[in-house]
């Protein structure tokens, strides 16, 4: 170690203030190479291919086909619908849960946070498979319904199954920013409002809810865009019957082998999700500007 010390000029600047561009470039090189060759180039190829026919000539046909076909417009619409429903579901389950967490001791909070994050630590495939069992014909939900004397409905391979699976995965993405924004609320505000005569509900509607809006918005954006672009859970729980964009990217690329068309669908998906995130970051910036000048 000590011998190395004499040999190596470590990546720490020997003297602050003298920019050493070469060292910086050298250190950045692996990351730059990875992203140039494995991120920028593939995406560039994808976009280029989306403007080509199968034989390589330039065309806008792939997009025209996507936007002109009511079936594919329906797929786009359904993707947005499922993403919106998942977001709503996460909010409905996540908001009360975050409120509950807010009042707990750090210990309880830690455990519940771990529980919340556990779906993210377990293989997506296994997690979706678990729901396959839970909602399946021999699963606990069906058994309970049968025990009640009713005929169990088809629980799998429909929007509901996808929704359940997606809310399960996405809940953490909603609750974490919510918790962050609830924690930032001045704890004296609610007692202050109560002192002014506001009831519990009024306090919630007029103080807690509006002040946690940034967290809700952040959570909603993340959940929406991640859901719109997720593949594994909908593919396993929804199958071909639930028509979502990522699934069609996959089938066009691997089954139909229409790469240009798959590329075009993929690009539309990118535009939808990143457009949303960009809009969100702009919204955030405007919100901050108002806070400064207002």
């Amino acid at each position, binding site marked *: 170690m000590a011998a*190395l*010390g004499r040999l*190596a000029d*470590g*990546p*720490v*600047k*020997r003297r*602050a203030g003298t920019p*050493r*561009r070469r060292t*910086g*470039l050298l*250190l*950045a090189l692996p*990351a*730059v190479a*990875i*992203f140039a*060759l*494995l*991120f920028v180039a*593939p*995406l560039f190829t*994808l976009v280029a291919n989306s403007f080509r026919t199968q034989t390589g000539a330039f065309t806008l046909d792939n997009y025209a086909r996507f936007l002109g076909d009511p079936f594919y417009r329906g797929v786009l619409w359904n993707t947005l619908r499922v993403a919106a429903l998942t977001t709503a579901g996460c909010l409905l389950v996540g908001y009360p849960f975050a409120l*509950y967490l807010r*009042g707990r001791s750090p210990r309880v909070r830690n455990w*519940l*946070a*771990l*529980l*919340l994050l*556990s779906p993210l*630590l377990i*293989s997506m*495939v*296994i997690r*979706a*498979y*678990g729901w396959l*069992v*839970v909602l399946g014909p021999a*699963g*606990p939900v069906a*058994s309970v319904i049968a025990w009640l004397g009713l005929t169990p409905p088809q629980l799998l391979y429909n929007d509901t199954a996808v929704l359940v699976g997606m809310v399960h995965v996405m*809940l953490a993405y909603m609750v974490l920013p919510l918790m962050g924004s609830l924690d930032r609320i001045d704890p004296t505000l609610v007692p202050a409002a109560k002192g002014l005569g506001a009831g519990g509900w009024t306090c919630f509607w007029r103080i807690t809810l509006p002040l946690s809006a940034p967290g809700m918005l952040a959570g909603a954006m993340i959940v929406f865009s991640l859901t719109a*672009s997720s*593949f*594994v859970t909908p593919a396993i729980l929804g199958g071909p019957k639930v028509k979502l964009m*990522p699934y069609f*990217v*996959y089938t066009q*690329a*691997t089954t139909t082998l229409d*790469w240009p068309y798959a590329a075009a669908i*993929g*690009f539309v*998906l990118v535009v939808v*999700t*990143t457009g949303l995130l960009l809009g969100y970051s702009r919204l955030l910036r405007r919100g901050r500007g108002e806070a400064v000048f207002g």
Partner: protein
Amino acid sequence: MTRLSRVLGGAFAALVGLFLVAPVAVTVASSLTATSYVTFPPRGITLRWYAEVFQKPEFLSSFALSAGVALAAAAVSAVVGLAGGLAIHRYRFPGRGLLEAVLSSAFAVPTIVLGIGLLQWFAQMGLASSPLTLLLAHLVLTVPYAVRLVLAGLAGLDRSAEKAAAGLGAPPFLVFWHVTLPAVRGALIGGAFFAFITSFDDLTVALFVVTTDLQTLPVRIFNYMQYDYDPTVTAIGTLMVLFAVVAVVVIERFVGVAKLFGAGQEDTR
């Protein structure tokens, strides 16, 4: 808070907890069923399906492939993340802003789109599917996390501490070793952990990169599920859950899982 609302809140939280653990609990329980189809509650108790897993060489080879690629992804991500984080945080070089922009936008691009992009790009380059291409594909998913965690770690480091070490007689390499590296230790462990989990778990990108004789574990399970509904998958799932639990316990000891995820969101200090 009234007592009633507290009880209601507790009940609600318990329901959410149940919802969160349901798929995993059911998977684990039904892996013990003696029936040849998956059922919950399990009927009878047997370890037959675990034996079954170990008798299927394709699952074992897929596990080996996945674990190998994930370990490599973890190691490479930590190293590349450290170098990239240091470069962005400490140095001015041409393209620095661009690198930062690309790293942060990588999160916004749907994985499925990356998958198909890589498929078409690799095909154009004439790169045949191999463990290496799989690793390369996974690095795109894992390196941004690692860089971000390292950047957060470096932001928390007081540069004076490095000056102090140098003043006390530590040459640059030892300053790095004794002061800089410990400050990003948590970030590196976290980055490596994320990378391992992400790579080991990835199905979306892998589906585009693999071939019939080169299948990662998630791909193998995914394909198996399309045709078979026997409890083998539940047994594999249980083993993977155990694997994850061990990883979480280890990480919790070192850094704290919640903190890890928090560090990805924002730097609280």
